């Protein structure tokens, strides 16, 4: 069962959902998997499920369909996607979005991995403190957290004022990629830490001892045994952070600039300023397509990677 949970599901969304579930787990308490054991009971199951599922279909499923439908409803038809991809602006924005998301993912992994590792080895008290430190910001309004970064990073902000007091040159930290990455990494870090922690918690620490007993140095044991075992957590965290970063809007809008717009900002501008709903929808579909493509690629890479989790392990 544990092995089964570690296994990467072929469904790409499932990886992200699993990561998200881990985030919720940390908030709600451990051991609360959705996949609870079988309970052979009968009842108005279908009836109970009908209302939530129908609403999901109407409020989440149908809108996604509308996006697709609307994007090809213009005079260009399906060619709109080719048109978009041929445009320098769109390509630049798409590339910037992917790079920003990748950078944010990287920063979150670098900071999140040691943090999650510390969670697994810390004393219960320290662990409780660290969990609260990571869960509280997760539930704090993104807008407010981004606003705080505006205050800190702006040209006359706290950081630059401190620098100038110290006689150091001021830095350009806002209205550029630097500011966006700082702010987004800050917002996304909990989404990296909690799936990593969930995966690491399942690793038997005696395995590292076993490797050391076999003659491996602590460092080699960690690299050869622990790291491969934490790989599913790394994948879940990366996928989750990457997906969320691709579509993130508030933080880039407040910390970035229109000149450095990300895809989400381009979509927003098309709806609110240009009023071009067709292009906005098409950009949205493009975002989903790129996300899915990358996830499929990632799934394939992880599958052929050596040191993957056991096939068919249950």
């Amino acid at each position, binding site marked *: 069962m544990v092995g089964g949970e570690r296994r990467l599901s072929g469904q790409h969304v499932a990886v992200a959902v699993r990561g998200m579930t881990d985030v919720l787990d940390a908030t709600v308490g451990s051991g609360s998997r959705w996949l609870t054991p079988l309970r052979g009971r009968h009842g108005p199951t279908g009836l109970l499920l009908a209302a939530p599922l129908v609403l999901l279909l109407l409020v989440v499923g149908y809108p996604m369909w509308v996006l697709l439908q609307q994007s090809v409803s213009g005079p260009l038809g399906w060619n709109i996607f080719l048109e978009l991809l041929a445009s320098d602006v769109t390509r630049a924005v798409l590339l910037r979005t992917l790079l920003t998301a990748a950078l944010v993912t990287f920063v979150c992994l670098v900071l999140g991995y040691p943090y999650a590792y510390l969670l697994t080895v810390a004393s219960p008290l320290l662990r409780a403190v660290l969990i609260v430190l990571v869960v509280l910001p997760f539930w704090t309004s993104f807008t407010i957290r981004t606003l705080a970064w505006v205050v800190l990073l702006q040209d006359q902000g706290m950081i630059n004022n401190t620098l100038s007091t110290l006689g150091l040159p001021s830095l350009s930290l806002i209205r550029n990629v630097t500011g966006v990455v700082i702010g987004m990494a800050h917002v996304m870090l909990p989404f990296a830490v909690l799936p990593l922690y969930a995966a690491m918690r399942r690793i038997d620490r005696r395995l590292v001892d076993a490797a050391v007993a076999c003659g491996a140095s602590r460092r080699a044991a960690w690299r050869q045994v622990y790291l491969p075992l934490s790989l599913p957590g790394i994948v879940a965290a990366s996928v989750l952070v990457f997906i969320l970063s691709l579509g993130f809007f508030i933080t880039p809008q407040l910390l970035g600039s229109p000149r450095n717009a990300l895809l989400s900002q381009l979509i927003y501008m098309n709806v609110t300023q240009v009023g071009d709903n067709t292009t906005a929808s098409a950009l949205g579909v493009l975002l989903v397509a790129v996300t899915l493509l990358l996830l499929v690629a990632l799934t394939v890479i992880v599958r052929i990677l050596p040191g993957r989790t*056991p096939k068919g392990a249950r």
Partner: protein
Amino acid sequence: MADQTSLKSRTRWRTATRPQTSHGGVELRLTGLTRSFGSAIAVDNVDLTVKPGEFMTLLGPSGSGKTTTLNMIAGFLAPDSGRIMFDGRDVSSLPANRRNIGMVFQNYALFPTMSVRDNVGYPLRQRRVKASQRRSQVDAALEMVELGHLWDRRPAELSGGQQQRVALARAIVHRPPLLLMDEPLGALDRRLRDSLQSEIAAIHRHVGSTVIYVTHDQDEALCLSDRIAVFRDGRIEQLSSPSDMYEQPETSFVASFLGDSNILVGTFTRDGNLRLPDGTEVRCGPADAGRGDAAVAGPATVVVRPERMRLTELEATPRSGTNCLVGVVIEERYLGATRMVALDVGGDRRIVVRENSGAGQTRPIGSRLRVCWEPADGVWIDRGADRHGESS
């Protein structure tokens, strides 16, 4: 539980003549080894010398300090004080990976991301053994545990017994002079344990490493070991060969931990007998065993194993010189090859007798019987003084 385990015949798998192997083992010496966790002392001033190639079992209940001792020998825990020496060389400050040991863990601790062959080859990889040579050594080790055909499997695809065999192969593939085993059979069912016990014995014969084997299972200890160290509260309560441990327990703790025993408490009389509270005197053991200051009268205890006692009808006259008590059968348990009969011999004292069930008649509850044993089968412990704690 003790009754259940005693069902099994206590086979000693070692052959009388052990072939001397070329590899050999290391001499392990522990002096004054101490380790505490917080205010609890887990290992308390333990001295122990293990001869090269010896199979030494650390036996004791959980929390007795045996696993802590093993972890210090392995190098996973630093002792608070005391020294660990391999062949006279102090390794106390050496990290585990530099001690050149092999270790089998309780839950196998196989690397889930590696195949069986990579698992077994791991110690060789750390020792930079060339790939071709590594391959043949791994295959040889896998042959030894009869798993040569499963080399490409992942640990999760193996049964518990197979996983344990892989763990064993991984621990010996590099021919370590010291092999440590931490309750290696603890997670297996009884049948598998039996077959793996003989396998462990065979491997020990073949490899010739010094073995430190931690268990709480008395049967394992008795059938595998050259010597057994019984741990209690962080100290070694008794250190002796399996047969001595069983035949000549030095404390009532050892007597009751290894096998079933009848513990008779009374006072030591001047003529070397044990006087029970009801006045009966029983003669016991070689009175001149030289155990401490025996001449003083005082509280004393004698242990008699249930299988050394015989039940007879009241009318049969006992052979002179044997000890006899009369009691009422209060319980009879049929165990297949043997039968345990419990008697009330008065004064709230219970005597348990084990007899072959082939003997025919049953022992109905309520019947009065005579229970007899030879004086030589009674073993003095705690004579004249409380000897607890003196043994280590």
